[in-house]
């Protein structure tokens, strides 16, 4: 479907014996500002590398902007229309900031000189600076400039706030939001900063142990995910099994807590039916949803 910017089906990637990706299904609609969340080693960087043909999947398919990511000619086309900020922020040590910009610019006829100027100022970058002299945060800012000025349809970002101070993060988020608003650009970014992600993302993918745990509109996901805290008259251990299917469960004396993903009403009804003393339904932040899901999976 060409109205999906990214479309992944059953992606498998093994390194040695370990599956980095174990049947990943993921999709990102065009024009979305999508967050990609997962623990270290969950498969985020591997996914991004497969999308850009730095690595090849062992099974499954991945399409970017409607094109096959594994195709030789198609991958070149993908990279013409995509911008990437890698996890490792090193750049060519023998160049200066200005030379890296000129080098990158030469590949993109749609380069936005106006954005380049703006970000040079906003990120306080100077063309004469040597790459070897740049701090990590400054390197990240340069990467962001190179990605945002490209005139790309899709922007892939791997830890784009690496080394950025709070002001840098703010400038980054504003730039991101401005791009999506003005040019209808699709953004797919992986980050550990869940607060910032929650602030600007409208789409979410959670990856865990090489598979997708959640994938959809962020508002809808947050509406469906509620923490239900049930207090019973007696020890609730025996009742835990009743709710195990609803989601990650925590049992502590008389209290049973379940992270319900959808079907919150049926959980509440069942709790009442079992004679719960109190049933409390709590909304969750993205961070809480993520931690509960990931820890619950481990249990």
């Amino acid at each position, binding site marked *: 479907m060409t109205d999906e910017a990214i479309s992944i089906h059953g992606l498998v990637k093994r390194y040695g014996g370990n599956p980095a990706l174990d049947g990943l299904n993921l999709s990102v609609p065009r024009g979305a500002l999508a967050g990609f969340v997962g623990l270290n080693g969950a498969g985020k960087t591997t996914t991004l*590398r497969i999308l*850009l*043909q*730095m*690595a*090849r999947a062992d099974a499954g398919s991945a399409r970017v902007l409607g094109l096959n990511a594994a195709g*030789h000619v198609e991958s*070149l*086309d993908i*990279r*013409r229309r*995509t*911008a*990437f900020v*890698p*996890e*490792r*922020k*090193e*750049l*060519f*040590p*023998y*160049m200066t900031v200005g030379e890296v910009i*000129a*080098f*990158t610019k*030469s*590949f*993109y006829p749609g380069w936005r000189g106006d954005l380049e100027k703006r970000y040079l100022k906003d990120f306080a970058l100077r063309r004469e600076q040597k790459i070897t002299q740049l701090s990590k945060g400054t390197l990240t800012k340069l*990467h962001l400039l190179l990605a945002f000025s490209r005139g790309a349809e899709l922007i892939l970002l791997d830890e784009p706030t690496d080394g950025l101070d709070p002001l840098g993060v703010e400038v980054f988020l504003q730039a991101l939001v401005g791009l999506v608003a003005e040019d209808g650009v699709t953004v797919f970014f992986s980050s550990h900063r869940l607060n910032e992600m929650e602030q600007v993302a409208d789409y979410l993918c959670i990856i865990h142990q090489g598979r997708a745990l959640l994938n959809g509109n962020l508002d809808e996901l947050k509406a469906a995910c509620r923490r239900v805290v049930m207090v019973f008259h007696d020890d609730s251990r025996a009742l835990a099994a009743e709710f195990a299917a609803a989601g990650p469960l925590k049992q502590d004396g008389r209290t049973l807590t379940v992270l319900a993903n959808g079907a919150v009403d049926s959980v509440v009804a069942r709790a009442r039916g079992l004679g719960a003393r109190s049933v409390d339904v709590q909304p969750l932040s993205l961070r809480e949803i993520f931690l509960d899901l990931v820890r619950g999976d481990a249990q």
Partner: protein
Amino acid sequence: MMWRKSWWECRFRVVCVALIYLSVSAGALLLLLNHGASAPPSARLNFYVILLACLIAPIVTVLLAGSGINSQTSWGMLHGFHASMYFLLSLPVSRRRALLIRSAMGGVFTALFVVLSVCTISLLALWSGTRIPPNQVLGRLPFILLGAFGLFGLSTLLTIVFDEFWAGMLGVSIIGFFFGMEIAFQSLPIRFQPAEILSGQQFILTGAVGWPVIAFFFLLGVISMAASVYLVERKEY
């Protein structure tokens, strides 16, 4: 801008090679001016050209060969791959193109080194009064270039498979091994002796081309360059 980038990656190595060229020229001069030597000038020259063809030019190929992707430094031989390659690989440039441009840059300077060295030796031979006619030196050029081509291909293949550090170590080790084997080769018929063929000596003396050696180094160059392109396109980063 891939050409300019390749130049940036090569330039310090080219400076090193230029220094090697100067020392080769100085060495040749001293050798030719050594009137007290027991061996005749032509024998001394032959020895020197064997040194050039079998040791110095191969080392130059190890210095100048590069993949354009695996390592992105211009100074030093890095352990492991430089992470800037992730950025480069995300750009719309094919790996084949990156490799071929970088190889062309390195290859041109390698060839330039060989040609300049040989021409300089020829001029010095004339100028130093040894009266060795230029065609006895310049006639060796195609053979030396061929040897360099074969080893340049091999060095390129090493830079694809290994990081800069190990590509360099292995490259120099292979050359040292090959050069050390020279003694063993001397028991073979002349047309199988790399030193005699690649220095062009046999051609100058007898007009014999020594096809086995020629074919070997030609195929070495072609096959390793083809393998380099094949591998770089399939490599996982």
